[in-house]
């Protein structure tokens, strides 16, 4: 099981360590640093590293490495999932998961880690249980605490800890009872040079924000549940109901949580909302090249495409770029060679384009590879797969809640090869 945890920042300082069994010396991290050096890029550090006596399993999140030390055969996914859960909890408690936030709240962090894992076994990882045990810091509370001497550690057993629904505590009370659902779909796609779709799928999630009193029992049904054939559920969902009736039936956790995530992959269901016309060329034996891209709407279901950003990792030999956008603004970082074009909205009358000259290092051979374009966009009020919520019913409680559903489609890993 998980033996120890080290938190390491980007400059390679170990700024926190926690041991759940015997103490493991910091020097074990040297193997990690070695791998990090070899990988050059922080994102390329392999997640599982073996050392003579331990295994190091790490994740990279928010510019921090969470490095766990294990000594026996443990499912690595278990460890990785747990580490992500730790990062999520920090995010949840401190609003951000950063070195500063962790250092500012080091005692709470330590209490949390102790509560989340016992002897390497996960103990309490549900946010609502943790929050009953250890109260999140707020300015008000710390002021009150320092005056009254009360503590931010709960002294009773959390109610959810042992019930069959560990995700919900008893006695929740709201004056305004609300239930909101966000259907968020991300399009992952690879588009080849000619504009044909090499690969496309939709990664969808339904995030919920439930503020309902008591023990509400909810049923969420869809107009077209057949779309969902590859689904991962929050533990609260009754699987049998879904299997037989295609209805999501559940007693919700309190607050924000991810209800389901799903994948729609059959190619014909995945509409590609934008197209890109591009011409990027480098001349042989010259220190210049041409760059010209235009973006236009395609299959956008009549909605506006907004928040468009194009990011391009230019080849190393590019020194500078001299471009003119018809819309939005661009930046080119000559150190990282990243070109970012913040486009904004597409108006079909006048398609946004960005063209101009590329200055290359003189004397260097012309780049072999053409860069891929990474595109971000957002379409409000649309789930590109066509998924639609039919209705939400509540049982078990008498009051009438406010209900709402929002749809949004975004680009996920949306790449255009040139």
């Amino acid at each position: 099981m998980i033996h120890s945890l080290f938190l390491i920042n980007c400059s390679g300082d170990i700024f926190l360590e926690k041991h759940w069994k015997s103490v493991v010396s910091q020097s074990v991290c040297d193997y990690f640093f070695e791998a990090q050096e070899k990988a050059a890029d922080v994102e390329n550090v392999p997640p599982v590293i073996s050392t003579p006596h331990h295994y190091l399993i790490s994740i990279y999140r928010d510019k921090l490495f969470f490095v766990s030390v294990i000594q026996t055969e443990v499912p690595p996914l278990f460890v990785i999932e747990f580490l992500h859960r730790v990062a999520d909890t920090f995010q949840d408690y401190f609003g951000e998961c950063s070195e500063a936030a962790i250092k500012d709240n080091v005692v709470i962090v330590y209490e949390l880690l102790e509560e989340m894992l016992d002897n390497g076994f996960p103990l309490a990882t549900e946010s609502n249980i943790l929050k009953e045990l250890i109260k999140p810091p707020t300015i008000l509370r710390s002021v009150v605490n320092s005056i009254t001497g009360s503590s931010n550690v709960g002294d009773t057993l959390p109610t959810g800890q042992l019930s069959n629904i560990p995700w919900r505590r008893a006695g929740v009370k709201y004056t305004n009872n609300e239930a909101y659902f966000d259907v968020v779909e991300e399009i992952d796609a690879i588009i080849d040079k000619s504009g044909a779709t090499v690969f496309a799928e939709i990664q969808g999630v339904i995030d919920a924000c439930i503020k309902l009193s008591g023990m509400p029992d909810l049923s969420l049904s869809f107009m077209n549940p057949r779309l969902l054939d590859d689904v991962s559920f929050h533990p609260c969902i009754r699987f049998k109901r879904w299997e037989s009736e295609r209805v999501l039936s559940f007693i919700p956790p309190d607050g924000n949580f991810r209800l389901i995530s799903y994948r729609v992959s059959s190619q014909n269901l995945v509409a590609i909302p934008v197209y890109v016309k591009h011409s990027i060329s480098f001349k042989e034996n010259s220190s210049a090249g041409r760059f010209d891209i235009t973006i236009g709407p395609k299959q956008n279901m009549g909605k506006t495409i907004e928040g468009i950003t194009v990011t391009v990792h230019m080849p190393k030999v590019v020194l500078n770029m001299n471009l003119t956008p018809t819309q939005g603004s661009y930046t080119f970082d000559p150190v990282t060679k990243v070109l970012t074009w913040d486009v904004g909205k597409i108006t079909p009358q006048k398609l946004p384009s960005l063209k101009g000259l590329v200055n290359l290092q003189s004397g260097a051979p012309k780049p072999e590879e053409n860069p891929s374009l990474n595109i971000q966009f957002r379409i409000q009020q649309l789930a590109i797969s066509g998924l639609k919520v039919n209705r939400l019913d509540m049982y078990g409680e008498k009051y009438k809640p406010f209900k709402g559903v929002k749809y949004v489609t975004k680009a996920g890993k949306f790449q255009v090869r040139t």
Partner: protein
Amino acid sequence: MTDSKYFTTTKKGEIFELKAELNSDKKEKKKEAVKKVIASMTVGKDVSALFPDVVNCMQTDNLELKKLVYLYLMNYAKSQPDMAIMAVNTFVKDCEDPNPLIRALAVRTMGCIRVDKITEYLCEPLRKCLKDEDPYVRKTAAVCVAKLHDINAQLVEDQGFLDTLKDLISDSNPMVVANAVAALSEIAESHPSSNLLDLNPQSINKLLTALNECTEWGQIFILDCLANYTPKDDREAQSICERVTPRLSHANSAVVLSAVKVLMKFMEMLSKDLDYYGTLLKKLAPPLVTLLSAEPELQYVALRNINLIVQKRPEILKHEMKVFFVKYNDPIYVKLEKLDIMIRLASQANIAQVLAELKEYATEVDVDFVRKAVRAIGRCAIKVEQSAERCVSTLLDLIQTKVNYVVQEAIVVIKDIFRKYPNKYESVIATLCENLDSLDEPEARAAMIWIVGEYAERIDNADELLESFLEGFHDESTQVQLQLLTAIVKLFLKKPTETQELVQQVLSLATQDSDNPDLRDRGYIYWRLLSTDPVAAKEVVLAEKPLISEETDLIEPTLLDELICYIGTLASVYHKPPSTFVEGGRGVAHKSLPPRAASSESTESPETAPAGAPPGEQPDVIPTQGDLLGDLLNLDLGPPVSGPPLATSSVQMGAVDLLGGGLDSLMGDEPEGIGGTNFVAPPAAAVPANLGAPISSGLSDLFDLTSGVGTLSGSYVAPKAVWLPAMKAKGLEISGTFTRQVGSISMDLQLTNKALQVMTDFAIQFNRNSFGLAPAAPLQVHAPLSPNQTVEISLPLNTVGSVMKMEPLNNLQVAVKNNIDVFYFSTLYPLHILFVEDGKMDRQMFLATWKDIPNENEAQFQIRDCPLNAEAVSSKLQSSNIFTIAKRNVEGQDMLYQSLKLTNGIWVLAELRIQPGSPSFTDLELSLKCRAPEVSQYVYQAYETLLKN
């Protein structure tokens, strides 16, 4: 207002200051001080000097303060064991507290204080807590047993905590069950032999019920535990699968993968005809694909596991090729894994897409990835024959880019393509030669040299090209040197007139100016071959090479089966069984897939097959390229000396034996890559076979062959035994034996007349028998047999007689008639007389067949007291037509992979494990796999007979 204030230090000295604060009367000040201490601890600062002061703060009603003190205690108790005792009283008291949170906290913390003295005091509170009325306390106590076991295993056993823990598996609360399972699993890991998790249908049922209700982490523990269970039949397996499948939709990827493990394992027991089997296959694909949309670290682990799953059951993901396409901003470790799986899934149906992708990748920035992509194109060409042409043209396009490492990599793979499809794509050689100068990596240079040497007759300036390499001969790596030597000798044999000087130059460089013994030895061999018998040299150096296969990177079936049992674990990430790398090597028990339940497809599956025998228990190795060497040696052996084909087994063996040692050293340091062995293939051609039995004297100093060739071929012949005693047959005594020689079987009979009258009119007949043995000619006794006379007759047999299954299988009932009467007797023939000469299976076929034959058809035997090494075993067996296909060394044991074929076309595959060198290990382990498992036992008997004589 933040905790960062705890890090600030003062001039006076931190420890001093803290000490004062800890002993302050003010509660608030105390708490702040403890927080400061903890803050120092988190960054690894040593604050152990404050131990007594901190422990003094322990007796408090403030839960936060208590928790903080506990945190401190856990870290430092080990360094101050005597002080730690001070804390014991408080713990014991807290274990009686009315608040379950405090009871649990106390028992939890006590377990974390890894001090022997404390453990004694822990027992009583722990016993109480294990039976506590509050499930939260029970579940915490369950974990505490595991902690205590880690500190003092004996104590835990003596106190009977293990039994209490086992009882908790039946607890009413699912969280308690999950933690009990987790604790037991951890304890069991350090005691592989103890039967702690005694799984039976009742306990399984309890686990399955708890599975639905416990937390995600608990589900992982329970699923991992379920995977260790072997259901008693396919119906039980199916019902467990049905209850596990909902876990595939869980949001936690570790739960999903553990569920996949259970399903993959139990699926093995389900019949393929079952509808449910198909349903299950379909259900497995979506969750696996979903794992690929998670964070990159999760993707990596998932991909390593998918790599195993597609090898075991390619049908699951065969339509999902596209999800493995690489995105340019994937981390490199994800990219490389995806590429690997793409090649495994490549088939005729999707090859066009795959190639287009690979070509795209070959222009990316990351050098490692580009190289692997180019290699992948070569592997596709070898795997999917229809695509070879397209692959070659893609590779040529890539060579045109002139990007140095792309060109080099392309040349290496094109060489492999030449090996796979000879005489098909040689037109591209000209293009390759243009890039000769840009090659600077040994592997690429060696590949190019191999191509030039191999196709010297088609390259006009081959001599110039090779000469250009020769200039810097001593600066080249060994790989290139060896290759250059062979290539120039090839060139000389093809164009002897112009290249005499060149070959002399290289031979003298290799033999006189080199310090490398391998190079020298090879140089000498060539030199002497060329000087004594150029014809033989030609046969040796230019011998036809076996085709290479794409299967070399597959994981060996038995290892794969074992790894499938470890899906989701570190073993699955490293693709090694845990026994080879888990710290301490605590003798982790090998896991194996359950045998498939008997179904309609195996109607002939008999009672004799030891169905319960756990198959594939041994760890096996990933086939390394070097193993091809075995193939080369065996396959390359030339045509037989004389006589009917297929009859020269012992001659062949002689050659292998004698060449074996020398060639091993020649090839010993060849680097990895099929290429390595390709180069050295020529010398393996059977020198003795081609030279004929009388070896030319010039070679005899190199190859002491005379003894090897001298012996007559044929399999082992048992001494004659009396089959029919005289008193049972009115004075006729028959003894005999069976022989197999040069492809024909005969029954050698000795007839003795012990009666007082002359015997005439002999005739013989066989009853129908299992393999259709029948006399091929009448029994010829030319003269009447007078009293006390003995005659020896060899009766030729064939196997075209009528067939009836006998019990035992090798029973033969014979009737002999003479002028006096008809006599009956029955005898058992050794099975090896039925092993045919063409029983050598192709290596790929072997792998495929081994995989294909269901595990319950595997039978395992021990051959005791057989102090032979692998060479001796293999030569002994080969003379009786048991052919060694590959040999490898695993953990100091030699493993021989052998095949044989019976006259009725039944193939038997064998895996023989030998522990060489140690006289105390003289037992061989034999695993046999055969579609008709009833023969296994008799094959084993044959093995034993052959090896012990």
